[in-house]
Structure formats: structure tokens, C-alpha cells
């Protein structure tokens, strides 16, 4: 694989990696509690 191809993949991968991290952490920290727990 050429360096130019790696550069192309790496450049976009930076966005994919941080987007995926944000997705995971936001889901974990900001999901509303389940309804049953809210009633309790």
C-alpha cells in the first residue's frame, strides 16, 4: 500500500475514530434513565 493511500485513509480515519468515540461516550453519559427507573 502506498504512502499516499495511507495518507488518504488516515485523514478520514481521524474523523471516523473521534466520531465513534463521541458516539459511545455520549450514549453512555446522556441516555435518559429507563422509564421503570424514572417511576421508582
Amino acid at each position, binding site marked *: 500500500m502506498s504512502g499516499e493511500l495511507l*495518507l488518504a485513509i488516515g*485523514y*478520514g*480515519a481521524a*474523523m471516523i475514530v*473521534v*466520531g465513534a468515540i463521541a458516539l459511545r461516550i*455520549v450514549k453512555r453519559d*446522556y*441516555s435518559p434513565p429507563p422509564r421503570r427507573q424514572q417511576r421508582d
Partner: protein
Amino acid sequence: MNPYAVGIAISLLIYLIVGSYAGRKVKHLDDYFVAGRSAPTLLIVGTLVASFLSTSAFLGETGFSYQGHGPLLLIMMAVNVMGYVLGALFFGRYLRRSEALTVAEYFGRRFESQGKRVQSAAGWTIIVGLSAYLLAVTQGASLIVSEVTNIPYSAALVVVWAGYTLFTFYSGSRGVIITDTMMFMVFMVAGFAALYYIIASAGGWFAMIEALATFEPKRDLIAWHGSLGPELQWQAPLDGLSWALILGLSWGLVVAVSPWQSSRYLMAKDEHTVVRASCVAVGAVLILYIALVFGAIAINLANSEIDPPERALVWAGFHLMPTLPAVILMTGIMAAALSSASTFLSLVGFSASHDLFPHPLRDDRHQLRVTRYTMLGVGLAALGLAYFQPPAIMWIAYFAGTLFASSWGPVAFFSVWSDRITAAAAFWGIVAGFGGNALAKLLEYRGILDLPVLLDPFLIGLALSSATIWIVSCLGRASDAERAFRAALHHVPERERDERKLRGTLRIARALIATGVIAIAFLIACYARPYAAARAAIGSGAQSTNLSGSANER
């Protein structure tokens, strides 16, 4: 009056009017310092990117790309911007949760047993680092204005200074974030307008890539490692790659924790806005850099002997673009400088009035008035210093950014993620990181030390700061109040657990992932493949270079 002068004058007038209008809504200290903590995503993205990019991006880095180091700049930026999201997730949203008025105040409250000392140390680093940065940006913008409008440098200096000081001192952060966002839009348009006309002058995108791949006067302009050689900055690809990764890491820390980036999160209306803005900033900066880097490299096809290279984009404006788009380009370069300058001025003013010399005044209104006068005083001092151009200041500007990475980086993350860090460790961590980086850079600048890439002053400062925090923390114990403050930071407010807000934030994170996929597809189809084809077409000339610098037949 030439059209460039008219364009710049109109833009300055608009910023002044908008800033003044925003200033009329400033009633309380909260409005002035953190825009009432009510800014939506667009304004946070605008101010994040606008205060990050200045003349160094539009002149320095385009010149660097024009010289032949563009692909390394892309590698550096890819690492750098990851700091936006990681900084927002692991520091920025906790900073906002603290409801401090400045980042230095956050440090003071987090390390309350020596709060004043820690807040002052952070405040002084802002005054020293950002004042130098402010001078460099002011002087750079004045040189451009003087060049394109044909007015004397001293007059240009006053115009530029007035262009950011008048509304910043009156409206504080409320005006700064609105004008920053307008300037962000102007320079985004300017960047893509420049790319469009440079591509057109090269006969289209694919003709441009083919011509650059086989360009003889400067070889390897768009090879992944860029141009190499004894007369250039790097001789082997690995040296260039190490530089790009280390600088990317250091500037990644800068966008994660530096005062002129993380303080933007204090103005966000909620924590979802913090995360959303960081995701959009990553996409906006990386898309803009594709335009800036390829545009700057392609200027070589029209003229490969522009000297100094930092003038390449201005040259392209004058010679490759019609008047109106060229006016937009010059206005955009100016906007990039003004937006950074207004943020730096506001932060230096806030630190002087709030972190270093706080006034125990009767009420909000009096404190607001004193802060405004302090801001004006700081602005006048900056004008005086910029006019006399003390040479000692310039070298500080050269590394001012990474000073914050090494001095604030470890303390910022430990303040959120460690229960063991003590107030004394935070203070000495800031001092050691700042001092270590500054001293190593000074010795290198004076030619006393010649440090290898892997011993970059930033890394020395970072290692010293981290080691100091660890050692000093072992000698003491964090107070109960400090532990309680940290525990409170980790409590997610109920109002943030909102289904609708959550869906919006997840949508933006997914959009960032999709943008990454599109960027990969675009760069493979429009850069890597046509580049390989062009190199293959010239037969025996087709070579690729491995990491150690030796050439292999492809």
C-alpha cells in the same frame, strides 16, 4: 482607494457594528465573560475554529505547503484536530459543568487549598503566552493590510488594532463569538474560492494532480512525505513524519485544553453543544485544510519562485483570481487574523481583571466597568508594543501555542481524572511544563542546543510537568473539599439527560463519521489514485520512497 482597501474597510465596519450591537446586550459579568452561557452550536464552532486559525494558517502554513511540505501538514492536522473531540469529552464538558468564568478560575476552584496560587499561575501563563501571540497576529495582519492597501505600516497597525479592540472591549465574549462566527464563514468561503480559481488556472483538478505529481522544479510536492532534500526542512521521510506526529500531538493538546479553545466551552448553552461543536470543528477544519493545502501546492504550477513563500496565497489572489474573489480572499485572511486577535485580547483582559488582580467591588455593574477599562488598557499596551516591535517578543510567539499544551495539558486532564493530584502538584506542574518548554525552546532558538525531533521542547515540558505532578502529589494529600469538587464534576446534571438533545448530538457524531468516509473516498479517488497513475505514466521515474528514505521502484 483600491478594491482590497474598500473590502477590508467594509468588513471592519460590519464587525464593529455587529460587535457594538452585541455589546448593548451585555448587562452582567456573565454576559461579558461567557456570553451568558447561552451560545448555540454554530457560535461555538465559529469561535473555536476562528480563534484557532489565524494568519499562521492562511499565510504561514500555505507557504509551508507551497514549499513542498503540504502532505505532512495534512498528517499533522489529522492528529491535531482529534484533540477537539477528545478535549471536549474528557475536559471541556467538565470545565463547563464547573460554571467558572475563566479556565484559570476553574483551576483555582478545583485546587482550593492553594486556589489563589494556582489561579494566578494559570493567569500569568495566559498573560505571557497570549500577549505574545496577540502581538504576532496584530503585526502579521498589519503587514498584509499595508501590502494590499498601500497604506503605511503604522496606519495599518492602528486600523487592525481598532478593528478588533473597539468591539472586544465593549462587548466582551458576547460580541467576540458572533463576530468570530462571521469571520469563520468569510474565511471558509475565501479558502474555497481561492482553491477554485487556482484549480481552474491549472486546467482542472485531475490535470492539477497530474502536473504536480510530475513537477520537476520541486519534486515530490504531493508525495505523502512532501519534498525532501538538503536545502529543505527534512532529508528523510521519517524525520518529516515524526515532526508531523509530534506537532500534531502537541497542537492536539492545545485545542483540547488551551485557554483560547477550551474557554469557548464555558459559553455553550449546554454540554450537548460542547460535544456537537467539537465534532463540527473537526470536520470544518479538516475540509478547509484539504482546500488550503492543495490550493497552496498548486500555486507552484503558475509560479514556483514566490519569495517569501508565505506570500504565495496573496500572490495567487493578485494573479490568478478576478478582483471580487480576490477581495474576498484578502478579507478572509484579515478575518482569520482579527478573530484570533479579538479572542486573545479578551482572554488577556479577563485574566488581568479576574485571575490576577480581582477587585472586591460592590456589584456586577462596577466589576463590569473595571473589566472593560482593564481590557482597553491591555489593548492599548498591545498597540504600543506592536508599534515598537520589540524583537524579544517575536520568538515567544513562535512557540506560545505549545506552551499551553505542556503546562496546562497534564494539569487539566488530571484535574478531572485524578483524585490524588494535589494543589501544590497542580501549581508546580504548570510552572514546570511552562518553564521546561520555554527554556528548551530558548536554548534551541539561541543555537545553544540542537534537539532531535523526538526531544521537541513540547515533549520536554510535557514530561517535566507530568513527572512533577506525580512526585509532588506523592508528598501530600488532596483536601476533602478538592475531592468533593471533583466528584461533583462527574455528576451529570439531570437536564442534560434529554432524549431530544441526545438524538441531535448522536446525529452530529454520525455525520462526522460519514464525513470521514467521504473524505477517504475523495482522497483516494482524487489524490492517491491519480497520483499513482501519473507517477506510473512517467515509467522509470515512478518511484515511491519508504520510511528510511531509500527509493523503491513501483
